[in-house]
Every structure is written in C-alpha cells, then in structure tokens.
C-alpha cells in the first residue's frame, strides 16, 4: 500500500514553534512566516536552549537582519512558484518587490552579498527543484509541468533542467525509477 500526503509547511512550522515556545513559558506572537516577537527578553543562554530544541525540526534562529531578509526572499520565491497562481502574471522582480516592500535593486544586492548567488539563479534552482518533485510524482506530463512552472515550451524547461542538473528530464526520471526498484526488492 502506498499513501500520498501533502504538507502545509506554514501550519507545520507554526505548530512546532508554538509547542517549543510554550515550553519556555513566555509570551510571544508569531507574525506570518519567519518572524516571532517575544514579549519578554531572552538571555543568550535561553536563545541557545531554544535553538537546541528547534534543531531536530530543522528550524534555525536567524539573528542578523540581512540573513533574515534573504530568508524572506527565499520564502517569497517558494510561495511564488508553488502557490501563487497570480504570480504568473507579473515579472518575478515586480512580484518580489511588491511582496516584500523593498526595491528589487535592494533585494537583489542583499541577496547576492549574503549568498554569493543571484535571485534569478535561486528562482531557476527552485523551479527545477519543483519540476523534479513533479517528475518524481509521475502524474503530470512534461508539457503540463512546463505549463505549471510558466515555461514557454517543453524545450525551454528541458534546456534549463539540463543546464542546472547536467541531466535531461527523461534520464533523471529513469534514475529515480531504478532507485525505487533497488530500494524495494521484489
């Protein structure tokens, strides 16, 4: 038997945060994704303890503003690609600037400074990552995937896929299928 499940990352993360923060008995406020306001101040040691308790969930406390903005850019890119149908109507630079309320120039500078890579590159990486997930699920054709991810053609998607991973989508799919066979011996 095989089950397919779907996650709502925001809810999951929020629940985990609530659970962990409650254990500290402080008043707090969770503002959307990635921001928590603590109503009393935390000592460095308490922050460390909180970090340790969040480690198993892969949640990291980010302290400086720039890394925080980078994280928000990444989250906004993820949202743009995974969830937001309307985002297709805008250029990604306009979308991000509107969403985060900074000029694209500023976003782009902070991003490159902190990650040594550009927002454009990150968008491509994230889109290809999504394409991989969709290919792995094996429910949509490549044409449908190209459309979902807002590529003008299958050739464009395949080209970018090859450039990013060094493999064509069909080779990638073959490898994944063989891996599955290998991990489930008959």
């Amino acid at each position: 038997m095989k089950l397919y499940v779907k996650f709502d990352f925001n809810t999951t993360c929020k629940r985990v945060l609530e659970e962990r923060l409650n254990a500290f008995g402080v008043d707090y406020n969770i503002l959307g994704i990635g921001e928590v306001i603590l109503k009393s101040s935390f000592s460095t040691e308490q922050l460390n303890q909180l970090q340790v308790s969040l480690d198993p969930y892969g949640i990291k406390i980010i302290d400086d503003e720039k890394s925080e903005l980078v994280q928000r850019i990444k989250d906004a890119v993820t949202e743009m690609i995974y969830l937001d149908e309307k985002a297709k109507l805008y250029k990604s630079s306009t979308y991000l600037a509107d969403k985060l309320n900074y000029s694209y120039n500023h976003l782009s500078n902070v991003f490159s400074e902190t990650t040594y890579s550009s927002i454009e590159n990150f968008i491509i990486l994230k889109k290809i990552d999504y394409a991989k997930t969709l290919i792995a699920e094996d429910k949509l054709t490549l044409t449908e995937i190209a459309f979902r991810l807002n590529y003008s053609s299958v050739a464009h998607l395949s080209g970018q896929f090859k450039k990013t991973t060094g493999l064509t989508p069909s080779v990638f799919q073959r490898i994944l299928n063989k891996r599955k066979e290998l991990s489930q011996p008959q």
Partner: protein
Amino acid sequence: MHIVLADDDEDDRLLFQEAIEETKVKLHLSLFHDGQQLMDYLLQGPSVLPQLIFLDLNMPIKNGMQCLKEIRSTAHLKHLCVAIYSTSSSDHDIEETFINGANIYINKPNSFSKLRDAIKKVLQMNWQYHTSSLNKDNFLLRI
C-alpha cells in the same frame, strides 16, 4: 563547512586541494588515500560529519562504488551528500552511480581552471541544498 576527498592518486589529491584553496570558500578539507581509510573514519563516528564527500571511483582495497553503497546503507551516514569524482565519462557508469545513491557526478576535468570552476559550482549547489529547503532526495548534478 567540512568536506572530505578519497583518491588514491597523490597528484590528483594535491590538485584538488589547490583548486579548493583557489575557490576562497572557507572550509576544512580532509584527505584519504583509499576507500577503506575513508570508511574507517566515517564509521568510527567523528564528532562532525562532512557535509560533502568526494569519492574517486577507481581505488585499491575499496573502490568508490563500494564506499557509496556502504554509506547509503549505514543509518548515520545515509543522508550525507556524495560526489563521485572520476575519469569515466560513460553514460552507463554515470547512471549506475546515481542509481546507487550518488548526488553529484564530476568528470575529472583536463585542466586546472575547469577543475576549479567545477568544484566551485558543486560547493555552491551543495550549500544551497543545505540552506534553502530544497529536496535532497532529488539532488542530482552532473558536471
């Protein structure tokens, strides 16, 4: 960042080390001269596991493919990122390593500058996978 390389060829190890230094990425590199030595190190449970393992395919005693299979079937190592670093460019060999769990396949380049660029690309991509909630199960890269 902590990375390791297992390669039996001393010249290749040196070139790799120099290329890493030229990328100016801050990291700690440990070198091993065969697969057995690398596996002994990994299995004894070092305090910090490497974020990235570079494996030469052709090595005496224990080759890269054997190491890869062992890493993928050991509970505390199976999540590690493995890059195969080899002279073979046959599609069959490459697919075989991916099927057995490699994340990255690097064709040993024939010039130093190409090697440096390849390593840089790998480090960048690997870092993204560690910091950007990308799906590691689908991490495949061929250079």
